[in-house]
């Protein structure tokens, strides 16, 4: 593809295609395009804004008019009650403790494992890679039933360890895939040069490959973090003790008494979503390049 682009350059033809306008669109076309995009943005954002409006008011007032963003009687009452009376702080801390452990352990395991897959053609490599890929297709229930029964036998129901274990092993295969794809793009010459200068293989990995892979490592950490942070079905079965609720379970419990707790439930959604949303929008570019790394390579 690169060769064709290079050849096409000297021709300097400027034809206006429907899909590519060298000089931009006409004012009328621009108006239509912008209108369509604004409409799409409203559809994309409105449900989120609506939750924000509901969180600000008492149940009966904020719900009636779908076009009021900040209700006239806006208060922080829902937020205050949520934080002081419900276990919201506890849910957040529980989630954070599990998620950070999962993301860190997952990163350590996959960073080293992926390096082995990337640099050596050892016996068992191909079946290993296919196994890792196949795990992506397994329906959650297929692992959840045996894991649930195993944890039940081991007495690990209602313990964070069981949950953290389940999260880590589901996060590692995908992480290894992404990191292996990235390591593959780091030239082998760099390590060889370092080894000629007296580094061992592991030192070369630690001092050269890992620092060069910081973007990919960040992606994997972030991805596993977000995955574990928002997980619901597994936690719903393993954790039933209210003191161990993660925020997803707490939110679901709030919604159980829907009619009365609607405002508080909306407040919880807002508080959960804002940090995740900011983190996501900030890192969207890396996340996306990480997701497409394996598929568009070469």
């Amino acid at each position, binding site marked *: 593809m690169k060769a064709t682009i290079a050849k096409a350059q000297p021709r300097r033809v*400027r034809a206006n295609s429907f899909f590519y306008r060298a000089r931009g669109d006409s004012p009328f076309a621009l108006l239509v395009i912008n209108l369509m995009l604004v409409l799409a*943005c409203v559809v994309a954002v409105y449900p989120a804004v609506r939750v924000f409006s509901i969180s600000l008011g008492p149940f009966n007032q904020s719900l009636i008019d779908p076009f009021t963003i900040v209700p006239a009687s806006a208060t922080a009452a829902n937020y205050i009650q949520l934080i002081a009376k419900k276990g919201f702080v506890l849910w957040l801390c529980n989630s954070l403790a599990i998620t950070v452990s999962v993301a860190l352990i997952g990163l350590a395991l996959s960073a080293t494992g992926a390096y*082995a897959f990337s640099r050596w053609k050892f016996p068992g490599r191909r079946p290993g890679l296919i196994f890792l890929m196949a795990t992506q297709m397994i329906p959650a229930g297929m692992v959840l039933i045996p894991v649930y029964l195993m944890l039940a036998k081991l007495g690990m129901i209602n313990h964070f360890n069981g949950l953290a274990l389940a999260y880590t092993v589901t996060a590692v295969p995908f992480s290894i895939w992404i990191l292996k794809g990235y390591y593959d793009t780091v030239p082998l010459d760099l390590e060889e040069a370092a080894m000629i200068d007296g580094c061992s293989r592991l030192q070369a990995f630690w001092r050269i490959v890992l620092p060069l892979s910081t973007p990919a490592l960040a992606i994997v950490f972030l991805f596993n973090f977000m995955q574990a942070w928002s997980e*619901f079905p597994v936690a719903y079965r393993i954790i039933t003790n209210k003191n161990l609720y993660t925020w997803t379970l707490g939110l679901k419990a709030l919604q159980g008494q829907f009619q009365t707790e609607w405002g508080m439930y909306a407040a919880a*959604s807002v508080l959960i979503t804002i940090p995740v949303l900011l983190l996501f929008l900030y890192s969207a570019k890396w996340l996306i390049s990480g997701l497409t790394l394996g598929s568009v390579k070469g």
Partner: protein
Amino acid sequence: MDYNLWTALLQGIRNALPSLSASLREIIPVLFLIIAGSVFLELAVYFVLAKGLKSRYALPYTLLAPSALGLLAFLGWPLIFNVGIAFSNWRLANLLNPSFGLKYGLDNFRKVFTEPLLNTKASTFGVIFGRTMLWTVVNVFFHVVFSMGLALLLNRKLRLRGLYRTLLVVPWAIPDVVVGLVWKGEFHQQFGFVNLMLAKLGIVGPPWLSDGSWAFVAVCIANIWRGIPFMMVIILGGLQSIAGEYFEAAEIDGASWWQQFRHVTIPLLQPVLGPAITLGVIWTFNNLNAIFLITEGGPSEQTNILVSALYNAAFGFSKFGFGAAFAIVIFVILFIFAGGWLRASGALKGVTEA
């Protein structure tokens, strides 16, 4: 007692501390145990392989040892164990002493295809399988169509392009659980904004979540809304890598916009679109959250897809043996599809050769 935001936060922290310290006392020793265990395992593997067996591959096997052990113990073993469970009569009544046997297994697999999967008569395998196909096709179709449209619009010279892109990605950035539970509220017949908006237009909104067909439409709408940004971003990335010269050349040769789309855009998007659609199909097929959080499969089990039926059968009704057999059937379906698709598109080749 009245709180303001600050005192509320203090009170919240005070409430959380006892439980939190208990769980941290549990989790931190285990973390250290895992780290120490991994290091010990690596040293052991290395000494056996390098010093004992003089293997050329001592280092890669050492590096892989902890993750391989973890994956085999907590992912590989459960998968084998799952086959064992499928050949048992495990259910809530005999949670601690199930019996295993070939007869139970054959019975479980026969039941998957011949008896209702859940409580109602209509929840047969055929019906739910059909609904899953419809669910997957409808969702992925609209994901691709809408995303393609938006990506084509965004791929032009626009002053506000960055802003549009950011806002359009919002549905993807909100956690699944929030999305699911929020949409459940928004489809409320009286108070949800969907029906409030329809009322403004003079339309009496349907009883979204209490009627089977409407509930299915509702979960589809919610999931389409949620899934567009991912596909859009992938397609936009692909579009931006297509040089404008291709379109100029096509224009000079007199190609209509449809011909350009069909013969320039689509073929050049193929390497990006193919894997994205494969992933989209697998994710949609396996999307338990969208169904479970909005309808839990209801009303009267009429919005269940295969994975949510599995979740409900295994945990709602505690039919573990039957659920395990059912899970194997689902996995085989997905594996045949994905394997066939990957073979046909040749996506697997580059993966294992590299």
